[in-house]
């Protein structure tokens, strides 16, 4: 009985670890796709001169957006920072580069929350003023 119980518990633990990995992996990937969508949209708007570069900060700073995929809703919190070409913060009044940080989290209807990019470690991209 001890032998079987040990095998049972070990297998169950292994199974739980696998399920947890699958769950997090699937939603991490989807979260990255959602973030990529936001970045693509900004790139396209800048490229097509639909949104002027100067408007990035007023449009996206502290903006919150969300996308629902299946049971999960992905919330994205944007922040913008003038930066150098390497992404380092700068205080230049008229920056040539702006970094957009997105912290994103997925919320399941049962209340589970999975952080994909946090405020301390966001998903970031540096945008350049293409039409100076």
């Amino acid at each position, binding site marked *: 009985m001890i032998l*079987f119980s040990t095998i049972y518990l070990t297998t169950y633990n*292994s199974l739980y670890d696998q399920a947890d990995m699958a769950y997090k992996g*699937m939603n991490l990937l989807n979260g990255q796709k959602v973030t*990529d969508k936001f970045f693509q*949209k900004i790139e*396209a708007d800048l490229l*097509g001169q*639909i949104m002027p570069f100067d408007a990035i900060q007023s449009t996206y700073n502290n903006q919150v957006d969300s996308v629902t995929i299946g049971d999960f809703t992905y919330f994205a919190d944007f922040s913008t920072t003038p930066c150098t070409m390497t992404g380092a913060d700068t205080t230049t009044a008229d920056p040539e580069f702006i970094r957009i940080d997105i912290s994103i989290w997925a919320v399941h209807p049962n209340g589970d929350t999975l952080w994909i990019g946090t405020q301390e470690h966001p998903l970031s991209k540096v945008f350049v003023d293409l039409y100076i």
Partner: protein
Amino acid sequence: MIHLLEAIGATIIGGIFILTMITAIINIHAIGVNTSQQIELVEISEDVVSVVESYLSLVGAGVADSAIINTTDSSFVFSYADSVGGIRHTINLAAETNNGSKELVAYKGGSSTPSLGPFQLSDYGVEFIYYDVNENPNPADSLVRSVQMTMEFEYDTFRDDIDKRYIRHRIRIWKYFKNLYL
């Protein structure tokens, strides 16, 4: 006689207990295999999606007009050229039904041989939703500037000794056609 009955009873109870444990372990093993396969399907899906995204990156490259040729909710036909004004190529990205199951395929030019796929999909298949520059859905083909593509991959984890189950992974991507914004 009483001892014989006790021995038979103990054997039956012990046998039932052992069978229950073995059944439980086999079931757990089956679920473990499916979970492992689910992880593998997620990884493979990501690889497939990366290739699909590289195809979608070609939309409108090097062509001045008619980059978007045909849009439906299950197929997307577009063109690109090797260089500006160069030879024009057509890509048809679609969900096809083959022997009752849906598959994701891409055809280049008029070829009947897929240049990508086939990849097994669930009954959900593929859904394309197109947007114009203002994110309004389903515009005329000439006004399409981005696409939302949702696809659900499927894998049959059947093994004779343990289980039969289909595992699925639904993934959604977006692609903004930068060439059409220029």
